[in-house]
């Protein structure tokens, strides 16, 4: 048999049928559903008198527009409340399991899939959300789909897909101290551009990727879409298996042993070829910060805001000038020292327990600058509970952070957590598009440690120079 990529192995195993015109019918193992992109899909099923083919392979939660404040209070926004009710009704009518606001398992869909062990190597996973690429960290083929495709998967458990191309993103060396998975992926996007991987599935390989924890791998795969790739994948290894073992929905006993044997085959074969290949030395990376209105507009914290005149094409010069006008930044301004008004710690990119621990190490024993309003929004209620067991909630609150309930929150500002016009935010989320966090709001993407340091310093700052605190004793006990 010819050498195959990881992607090809997962793809081939899910081809139900080749359609005469070229694409295939691809089987979906896990369909994740949330309140924003599903109501029209369930509505379509109702209109056509169709059922959900495999409710047992479908899992729903609420995340995008949920309030992150007091859960005992009614929801202020009647339109958001109606959408949440619609999902509850649809889940009940079609027999789909739902983790709602009362559930201890509620959270961002891309955080709860992995933490439940529902996300497993070799699966095809889809969701009406572009950051579904997150689940590729387990060696799954996971990608975002539109609402019509959500309806298609609900009705048929399949998708009609044409085979994408493959891109190997190979990271040699090791990340230096203080440089994180977020910096690795921002550096990659800065290199290839926001359309650099369009039409491709990315396979992340190399020593630097193998050295990452599962949560860090999720951060990397999460932002594949910011490089244009619908999916990013990492071959499962001991790190993956250790993460999955014992999770509620992971196989157990004899089934675990069989699954593991199968999962161990999931890697690119020696000699497998990719359509495109990019190689980056991870040891050369520094903490990254975006300066513009697209994730590709990024440099490291020692860098400066670029001059539009320095770009090659007229279109780029215009886009950069427009971005700088929106961001209220002058060419040549050093990024370090740029004052921020808000700090957001959370999202499907960086809202996991490891992210909160990394930020807490920066924050503990320090105070949020008086000019800054800072928010921690755990990625799930499970993450929140774990952080509270470890005393991280106290660390953050003692420093002056607000401590919230789980949801997408200020990553996209569908709920009340938004920037006001003109506010500048250090954010651990994934998109710095115009208005993403609130109309007129200015977003700088960075790692949790960098965002935490910005909260304390009141400005963008290189966290590598900072002494990190030990975490509270309760953490030592808990771990």
């Amino acid at each position, binding site marked *: 048999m010819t050498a195959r990529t990881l992607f090809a192995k997962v793809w081939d195993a899910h081809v139900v049928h080749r359609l005469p015109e070229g694409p295939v019918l691809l*089987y979906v193992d896990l369909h994740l559903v949330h309140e924003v*992109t599903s109501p*029209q899909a369930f509505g379509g099923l109702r209109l056509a008198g169709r059922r959900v083919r495999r409710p047992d392979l479908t899992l729903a939660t609420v995340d995008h527009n949920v309030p992150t404040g007091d859960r005992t209070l009614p929801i202020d926004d009647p339109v958001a409340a109606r959408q949440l009710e619609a999902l509850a009704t649809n889940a009940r009518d079609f027999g789909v399991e739902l983790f709602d606001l009362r559930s201890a398992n509620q959270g961002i869909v891309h955080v709860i899939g992995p933490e439940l062990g529902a996300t497993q190597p*070799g699966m095809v996973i889809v969701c009406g959300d572009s950051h579904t690429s997150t689940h590729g960290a387990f060696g799954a083929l996971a990608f975002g789909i539109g609402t019509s495709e959500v309806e298609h998967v609900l*009705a048929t458990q399949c998708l009609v897909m044409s085979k994408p191309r493959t891109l190997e993103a190979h990271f040699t060396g090791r990340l230096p101290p203080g440089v994180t998975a977020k910096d690795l992926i921002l550096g990659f996007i800065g290199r290839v551009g926001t359309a650099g991987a369009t039409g491709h599935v990315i396979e992340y390989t190399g020593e630097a990727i193998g050295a990452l924890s599962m949560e860090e791998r999720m951060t990397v795969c999460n932002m594949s879409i910011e490089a244009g790739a619908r999916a990013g994948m990492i071959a499962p290894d001991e790190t993956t298996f250790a993460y999955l073992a014992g999770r509620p929905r992971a196989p157990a006993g004899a089934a675990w042993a069989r699954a593991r044997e199968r999962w161990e085959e999931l890697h690119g074969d020696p000699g497998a070829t990719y359509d495109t290949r990019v190689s980056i030395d991870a040891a050369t990376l520094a903490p990254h910060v975006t300066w513009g209105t697209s994730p590709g507009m990024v440099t490291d914290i020692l860098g400066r805001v670029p001059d539009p005149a320095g770009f090659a094409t007229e279109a780029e010069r215009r886009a950069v000038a427009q971005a700088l006008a929106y961001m209220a930044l002058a060419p040549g301004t050093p990024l370090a020292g740029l004052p921020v008004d808000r700090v957001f710690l959370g999202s499907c990119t960086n809202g996991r327990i490891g992210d909160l621990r990394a930020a807490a190490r920066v924050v503990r024993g320090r105070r949020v600058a008086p000019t800054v309003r800072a928010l921690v929004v755990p990625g799930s209620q499970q993450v929140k509970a774990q952080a509270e067991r470890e005393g991280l909630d106290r660390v953050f609150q003692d420093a002056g952070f607000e401590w919230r309930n789980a949801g997408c929150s200020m990553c996209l500002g569908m709920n009340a957590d938004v920037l006001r016009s003109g506010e500048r935010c250090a954010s651990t989320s994934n*998109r710095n598009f115009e208005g993403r966090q609130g109309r007129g709001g200015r977003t700088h993407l960075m790692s949790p440690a960098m965002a935490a340091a910005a909260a304390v310093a009141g400005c963008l700052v290189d966290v590598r120079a900072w002494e990190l605190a030990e975490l509270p004793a309760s953490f030592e006990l808990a771990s």
Partner: protein
Amino acid sequence: MDAFVRHTGKAVAFTRDNVDTDQIIPKQFLKGIERTGLGPALFHDWRYQPDGTPNPDFELNRPAAQGASVLVAGRNFGCGSSREHAAWALADAGFRAILAPSFADIFFANCCQNALLPVRLEASEIDELWRRCQQMESGEGGYQLTVDLETQRVTDPRGFTAQFVIEPYRREMLLRGLDEIGRTLLEESRIAAFERRLAIGAAGRAS
């Protein structure tokens, strides 16, 4: 789904690269449970001032752009979020086709699901169309383009012609306005056989 065979209509130049779906339809309009009525919110934050009045500087607010149904856009159009609301909003605002040098993958698929034809042309062809849009937009009826899916060709009355490529499957679905779900359901026996073969049970793949 509606069919798309050919369309002739007013074209408008939208000379920006990397237009993301957050700009096409901002998040505050994603809370609905319907597919319809999103046209007025298209490009909301660019199109309207904070006080809700139209922004006169936004290119699609110019009188010459009114009634346009063919958007001639820049590279990587529709990047970012998977929200199909972006395609719904463009269609609801009267657009039938979008021409661009490249599209983001999910947005491209969403357009096809809504008979909003995404057409990939060479960057040089888009440049030429932008030039012609700007030259001829003030004339009677503006600058008219014909997008023909049957012949896979974009033409204007003044000799512009460009051939485009689209996957045969997508083309067939659009030309015939087929219901993709209905078509896939015809493969039920194959899907069921696939599930039996791999013993896909409630806990995922039992293997």
